[in-house]
């Protein structure tokens, strides 16, 4: 009799597990697509564009509801963002979606000179930010914020969940100048509805207080920070969580106020430790003359492995277990 591996024993693949939602977690389907479609009903100037990734950036929801306001530009990211600039110059408010790697790496010159320099209201929507795919470096935009932070005029938003995305989209449309949204797509966890929280562009928010540790986080790592804070309770560790969904311009005042005491401080980001949230916070701390140690939790300065997301998040320190371990180790 031939022996075969039972399905449960087969190795996990990246294609099988490409979601960062926990099993059984409350989620919301395609929050960006629905939010954009809704915002477009209120503002006739809103249009949507994509570069052959409509279905994979949730832009298809908008396209279905507003077919006459959706523009398919083909797999041509330079054209996508150049054309978005041209549309904005005629008074429209474009949301242009592709993967973060293509926006940040391939089309940078077009974002910079066609959109950011004339300060046009073009909203760049980047799918698969940081480590949210197991496809390896071709798809993992682990350095997108580092690339974009140096671009003048550009607002950078790293949302935590469906609540952040739904509330951010109309604010991005309403704000002057260009924005970059680190998109979470598909069935996106719904987390922040359980907190006294509303997204405000440019603002950091304290989601929970804590006497021993302060976790400063953005993006999906805020979800992990909240889970870690809860897990730390079992270890008699009281952790605060400060969510900083707007990376630039950065709400230094709120964050510095939280870093002022002698609590252990960590930053948590779904991004390389180079040029993202950690360095943004570190820069604010040094500029303010604060004598404060800050411990970074983030992706290493390396091209990452391919594989299943849960495996990779654990490997690179983004899992709740690894965060808890790091905090406890730091507390000694």
């Amino acid at each position, binding site marked *: 009799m031939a022996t075969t591996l039972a399905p449960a024993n087969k190795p996990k693949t990246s294609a099988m597990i490409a979601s960062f939602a926990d099993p059984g977690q409350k989620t919301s389907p395609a929050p960006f697509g629905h939010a954009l479609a809704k915002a477009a009903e209120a503002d006739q100037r809103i*249009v949507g564009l994509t570069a052959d990734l409509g279905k994979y950036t949730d832009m298809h929801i908008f396209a279905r509801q507003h077919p006459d306001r959706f523009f398919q530009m083909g797999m041509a990211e330079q054209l996508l963002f*150049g054309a978005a600039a041209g549309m904005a*110059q005629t008074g429209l408010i474009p949301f242009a979606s592709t993967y973060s790697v293509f926006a940040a790496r391939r089309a940078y010159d077009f974002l910079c*000179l066609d959109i950011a320099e004339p300060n046009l209201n073009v909203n760049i929507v980047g799918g698969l930010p940081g480590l949210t795919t197991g496809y390896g470096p071709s798809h993992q935009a682990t350095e997108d914020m580092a690339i974009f932070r140096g671009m003048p005029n550009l607002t950078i938003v790293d949302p935590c969940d469906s609540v952040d995305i739904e509330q951010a989209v109309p604010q991005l449309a309403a704000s002057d100048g260009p924005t970059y949204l680190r998109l979470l797509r598909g069935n996106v966890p719904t987390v922040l509805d359980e907190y006294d929280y509303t997204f405000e562009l440019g603002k950091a928010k304290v989601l929970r207080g804590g006497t021993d540790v302060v976790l400063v986080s953005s993006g999906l790592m805020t979800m992990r920070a909240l889970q870690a804070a809860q897990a730390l309770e079992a270890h008699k560790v009281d952790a605060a969580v400060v969510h900083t969904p707007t990376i630039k311009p950065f709400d230094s005042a709120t964050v510095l106020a939280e870093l002022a005491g002698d609590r252990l401080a960590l930053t948590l980001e779904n991004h390389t430790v180079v040029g993202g949230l950690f360095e943004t916070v570190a820069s604010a701390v040094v500029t303010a003359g604060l004598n404060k140690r800050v411990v970074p939790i983030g992706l290493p300065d390396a091209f990452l492995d391919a594989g299943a997301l849960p495996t990779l998040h654990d490997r690179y320190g983004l899992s709740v277990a690894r965060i808890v371990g790091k905090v406890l180790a730091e507390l000694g």
Partner: protein
Amino acid sequence: MSTLDTTTSRPLAEGTFEDRVGAATQAAYRIRHHALNMGEVQGQGYVGQALGAADILATVYTSQLTFRAGEPDWEGRDRFLLSTGHYAIGHYAALAEAGIIPVGELESYGSDDSRLPMSGMSTYTPGMEISGGSLGHGLSIAVGTVLGLRHQGSGARVFNFLSDGELDEGSTWEAAMGAHHHQLGNLTAMVDINALQADGRTDTVLRTEPLTEKWQAFGWYVQRVDGNNTAALLEAFDNAAANAKPHGQPSVILCDTKVGRGVPLLEDREKAHFMRIEEHEWQLCRDQLSNGYERTAL
């Protein structure tokens, strides 16, 4: 075709075809003259390109574009997008010729705090629609501009000035495909084919020919003309105008030009992207330019 508001728009040249050619030719002369003056102030500049492209710029501004000189942001205007930022010297001269910026301001070209920087930028200069200079951007922006205007029911046309060197950039061809795919019949591109780019002759740097066949293969209505012949240019632009409609074939006019055209001293000089002209030569250049035009009974 765009609607011409004759009460407030700067009127286009009227009369017979010959009258309109005459208007373009005279404007081209003044653009060349302005460019030489601007170059002299800085002692350098992209004078060769401005002289080569003067006939194209003059023809477009005198015979094709609808705009309001005193209201450069008027939303009903046709748009002229300069991809090749370093051609700004010629474009500024054309803007002055069109009454959008004062002729007296031209001498500030390239100076500190001038509205007329060496490389054209929309944030600096009235009538400058985009910030060119990083080549291969203009046609993509033009595609979006036409899409945006058409979406909002405007019949305004969009013109994009490119150079043959710029055709090295792959983004230009992304945009060429996009314009055809979206049937942007109100888009007219013009390519200044001076066969010269920064490192030398185009056919030695990166071969772009055969250009007619390439653009045709990308689905465009293609005309190739002597870009230093205002009659040929006017006929081509009129053909493009007749072809223009909200949903239709985009047009490209391939214009073969000569760097330094109109000034024999510069036409015969070793061709260079950034031409050096000695201090004593500027007046000689102006004299040669005037003499040449007088010989052709302007």
